[in-house]
């Protein structure tokens, strides 16, 4: 594989991990989040600071990065999950802008210059770059997808599905809305944090604008395109929205316009996403594989 392709594939896989986290929050628990890039950023900045200022290796800092992201998710989730729907959307946008501003204006986080000189990752004395780094990201994606797969099959996941469908009915069945929404939020932000750490060590230079509000929109677009609440949706969405701008390179200036159009078209014609229950892809699949699982 050429370096160019590997770069795109690596970014797609990292994005897929972030979107997996978003899927837990939005797809499973039904809590709309328009500020997911903030938690991606918190993971990246934690990893960058632990690597450059504390001199820790990727492996030593990784558990801390995941815990920090999850804890900040818990902290920011507490006030925001008490509001619903439109208000939650606005609150999460606010979180995104505040987190970005903190990175941008507090000197500890490198200000406008960002943080550079982030070391590469070593595994068994091997320096990971190019294809080997891609394999590392892929391994983490597999782990994250396994975690999502399990989450959808355990009682905590079922409780989140119930909350998504009807909060009052769920509460009358012993499900604490605040507790399970927070759980989904913490799991989702921890996954974003993990992806952030990979991103920081891959780019080796990060700045606040990497995690701005438009990034959150892109992440949400990937999820909506793939199909909210579906296991493979994050990877599919990240792959399509990651590859298309490369294919249509001359149109890159219009990328945001393109995303918006895709989002609107999906909402109008395929509201449950490409992998959704009543989507075109599933209908075709059902015809090709009769009796196959929907």
């Amino acid at each position: 594989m050429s370096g160019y392709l590997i770069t795109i594939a690596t970014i797609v896989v990292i994005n897929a991990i972030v979107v997996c986290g978003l899927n837990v929050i939005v797809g499973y628990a039904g809590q709309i989040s328009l500020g997911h890039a903030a938690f991606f950023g918190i993971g990246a900045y934690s990893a960058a600071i632990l690597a450059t200022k504390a001199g820790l290796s990727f492996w030593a800092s990784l558990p801390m990065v995941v815990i920090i992201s999850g804890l900040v998710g818990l902290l920011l989730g507490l006030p925001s999950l008490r509001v619903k729907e439109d208000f939650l959307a606005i609150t999460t946008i606010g979180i995104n802008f505040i987190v970005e501003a903190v990175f941008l204006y507090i000197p500890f986080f490198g200000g406008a210059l960002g943080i550079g000189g982030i070391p590469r990752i070593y595994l068994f004395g091997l320096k990971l770059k190019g294809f080997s780094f891609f394999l590392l990201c892929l391994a983490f994606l597999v782990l994250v997808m396994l975690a999502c797969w399990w989450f959808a099959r355990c009682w905590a996941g079922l409780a989140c599905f119930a909350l998504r469908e009807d909060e009052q009915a769920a509460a009358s069945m012993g499900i604490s809305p605040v507790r399970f929404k927070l759980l989904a939020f913490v799991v989702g932000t921890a996954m974003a944090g993990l992806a952030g750490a990979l991103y920081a060590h891959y780019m080796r230079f990060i700045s606040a604008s990497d995690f701005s509000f438009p990034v959150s929109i892109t992440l949400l677009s990937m999820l909506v395109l793939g199909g909210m609440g579906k296991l493979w949706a994050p990877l599919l969405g990240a792959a399509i929205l990651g590859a298309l701008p490369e294919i249509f390179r001359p149109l890159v200036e219009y990328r945001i316009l393109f995303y918006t159009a895709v989002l609107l078209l999906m909402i109008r014609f395929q509201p449950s996403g490409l992998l959704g229950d009543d989507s075109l892809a599933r209908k075709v699949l059902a015809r090709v594989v009769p009796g196959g699982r929907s």
Partner: protein
Amino acid sequence: MKQPLLKVEGLRKHFGGLKAVDGVDFQVDRGEILGILGPNGAGKTVCFNMISGIYKPTGGRIFFDRARTDGLPPFRLAAMGLGRTFQIVKPFTSLTVLENVLVARGIAHYGRFRRIWGPWRSKDQVAAAMGILEQVGLAELAGRKAGLLPLGNLRRLEIARAMVVGRKLILLDESFSGLRHGEVSRLEDLIRTIRQMGITVLLIEHNLRVSMKLCDRIVVLDHGRKLAEGTAEQIQSNQQVIEAYLGRRRRKNAAGG
């Protein structure tokens, strides 16, 4: 002396100046079917919402299974063995009928952090949920998405969920409204079966005839206050109840004639 399962004392709920429920007392004994009857806006559903924890009472006290429960959130009351249905049905629409019941079966898991990580689609769980669905007559529709069911089946589904959660008490909020004649009698049988299982039932009903047939005792509410309480015969001959339901024509006629 026999302890009541549910006791409500001086229960009040005010929304601004509106006194939706204004000093209501009643109790539900273990194993009985108690009906709450009353015209629209009498405060029946508000009473239910306070008992099940959705509203905090403005005043008064609620005792469920000997513990004081007014002001507790709904999920805690559910964990104590109180199940309920909703007047406007609230199915988990994109989940299947079976999954809807499995959500209710999770009541044994949701309270403990370590127990929420176990799988919910195990053989035992599915078998138990299917058992409940057979009881309410929805077993054949187990794999159907709940959002596709007609109202009568949705009411049964809600009762199925309430039966799993309500180990001690089930609140049924107008479960008969909007049902066809055949469905009504089947639902009556189901409620009697629930009582035979040793579960106490408190139901709100609009339909006089149904509640007269089904309930051991009836409490009549009107304008947020208790109008009458007693057996079906006592209620039927109660002058105040007749007035609340039929208006004051009789007395007018009497005065005119």
